[in-house]
């Protein structure tokens, strides 16, 4: 007998690139913010992997950029979520967000990006204000076809995050959800989980109510589900930012 009872391979799927753009400036080292971010991403991975198991339409590929004084690929290879391992970020330096955008733009160009894919999901996480010229990097992203089509979301950590910049990064998506404001580790965990599971689900298979012709008056190409509500009752130790 042959190994397989039937010929062919798995159902064809498209790649879905998910990229974290993480602020690692010195202020992220205060009050355990960077540790909370590391922890929230680590917590989200098993759920992302379980979600990927049930998603026949997408091959989720994850990587991460870090920015502080300069910007680097923290995890450079688009890694299948099944094999993804988070490497902890550490904080120091300034907030060179523009350099991170320029790095991102290089990778959203075709090639190295595939011609055919699901909309990429780009998530910017920041607690402060850019120290460099972020506008030119953002312009580069917005001029690229994949930059235009990408789902761009942002998570603001703490009260000092620059919402205007985060909104500009989000483009049309700012009208849908706005930057997600995380004031404690619990909110951060919920938002990280939401962007990495619910948003991926909807980017690979939008809810039916949005597929109906004329049902959506929205301007975005991927309908964004409702984000989780902020935690109302904060435990004392959470309320540290």
């Amino acid at each position, binding site marked *: *007998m042959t190994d397989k009872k039937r010929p062919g*391979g*798995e*159902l064809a799927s498209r790649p879905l690139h998910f990229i974290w753009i993480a602020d690692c400036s010195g202020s992220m080292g205060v009050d355990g913010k960077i540790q909370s971010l590391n922890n929230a991403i680590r917590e989200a991975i098993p759920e992302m992997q379980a979600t990927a198991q*049930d998603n026949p339409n997408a091959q989720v590929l994850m990587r991460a950029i870090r920015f502080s004084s300069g910007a680097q690929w923290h995890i450079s290879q688009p890694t299948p979520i099944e094999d993804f391992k988070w490497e902890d970020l550490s904080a120091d330096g300034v907030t060179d967000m523009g350099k991170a955008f320029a790095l991102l733009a290089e990778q959203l160009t075709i090639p190295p990006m595939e011609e055919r*894919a699901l909309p990429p999901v780009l998530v910017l996480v920041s607690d402060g204000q850019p120290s460099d010229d972020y506008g030119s990097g953002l312009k580069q992203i917005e001029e690229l076809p994949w930059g235009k089509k990408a789902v761009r979301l942002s998570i603001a950590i703490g009260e000092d995050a620059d919402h205007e910049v985060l909104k500009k990064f989000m483009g049309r998506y700012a009208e849908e959800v706005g930057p997600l404001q995380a004031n404690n580790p619990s909110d951060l965990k919920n938002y990280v989980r939401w962007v990495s599971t619910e948003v991926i689900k909807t980017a690979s*298979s939008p809810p*039916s109510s949005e597929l109906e012709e004329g049902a959506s008056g929205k301007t975005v190409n991927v309908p964004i589900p409702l984000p989780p509500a902020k935690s109302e009752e904060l435990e004392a130790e959470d309320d540290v930012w």
Partner: protein
Amino acid sequence: MNQIFKAGDKIIPHNGAKALVVEKFLGGGGQGEVYRVKHKGKYMALKWYYPTTVNTAYLKNLERLINKGPPNENFLWPMELVFDPDSDGFGYLMPLRDERYHSIVDLMKRRVEPSFQTLAMVGFNLAHSFLQLHSKGMCYSDISFGNIFLEPDEGNILICDNDNCIFDGEVTAIKGTPRFMAPEVVQGNNPNIQSDLFSLAVLLFYIFYLHHPLEGKREAAIKCFDLPAMKKLYGSEPLFIFDPVDHSNRPVPGLHNNALIYWNLYPHFFKEAFIRSFTAGIKDPLHGRVRETEWRSIMLKLFDSMIYCPACGSENCFDPASKAETNLRADCWSCHKQIPLPPALKINQHLIMLNYDTKIYPHQVKGETVFDFSSPYALINRHPRNPDRWGLKNTSKEKWVSISPQGIIKDVEPGKSISLAGGTRIIFGKTEGVIEIIDDLNQKDLN
């Protein structure tokens, strides 16, 4: 996400019935969460709704579904409402899904590998079950990967998430799942029994071809597969990848290999059903779609057309319609060797290929009114002293009569067998079958 209940939580229903004990969180979705619970000494599934997701009309529909009862045992149907007086929340109890059942996603990702004959049974069970639902005047509205489960040995199925079933013509918040929704639903119509038929055809196509029926050149040309692209491909400009007239959306080698590999493995009658589903079925939702009764016959016919390659053991379909073209023998899809054909039993122009392990069930002989797969009506066996002689054993409760090509008449009592000699007629009560040797080179070898 924080779960509504924890293991060990007790829910005391408002009617004062005995408490339900939460055992395990099973999963969550857009509407609520599902738990394994212990209720009156039995394990059951409890779906609990998030407070804002359902309204009074939804609750009324649930009550109606519970009163109506399941269309057949393949539906994990709502059985009893549960209200929690403390939280004003509510949910319903339903049977638990057995762990032997796998999701269709497992099939798509090749984590389960059923045989072709098992898939034919899956297809039959799906068509049969949705026929039962539709016969009650109800539609499902969301046939898709997530709601159907299959057991990979016998081809049994389970249909979950039945709380969204409505009566045909009613309006529901659930419109379906992208890739499965009928084009008219994508374009704004409400789902109904006819759109269920389209979604069923998509699901069957996925099951048998591991591909979507509308994803060919047009899908390949789309760079970013987002909402506007999906609306066009599945809604405003749907075109079957094997449309016999318009060839402009054929599968693209390298991108859509499964569609190309599988298309010609199946017999003409099988392909014709999909052609109709995605040509006339798109143009004319009301009259053009393949009905469940048709799918049922098609699936049983596919089951009966299966033969084994003696060289590698792989299952292949024998296509009587291509007899003339292929000079009887087909090449095995796996080892590419020619497959000698086993004998066949022909009843009313329908061929049942007789493999070493073939079992024949009452509906195959008596017509398709009752489907009972619990005990075979006949099966293939070897002569006890001469292993080269194969026969059809009478495992029914009635006597058959055989008439040899020479005109010799014999009774075949229950428990006895009749040799598979070409031209032998067998009278099964009111039906008559004849043993056909299609391939002269293979009179003896059934392997």
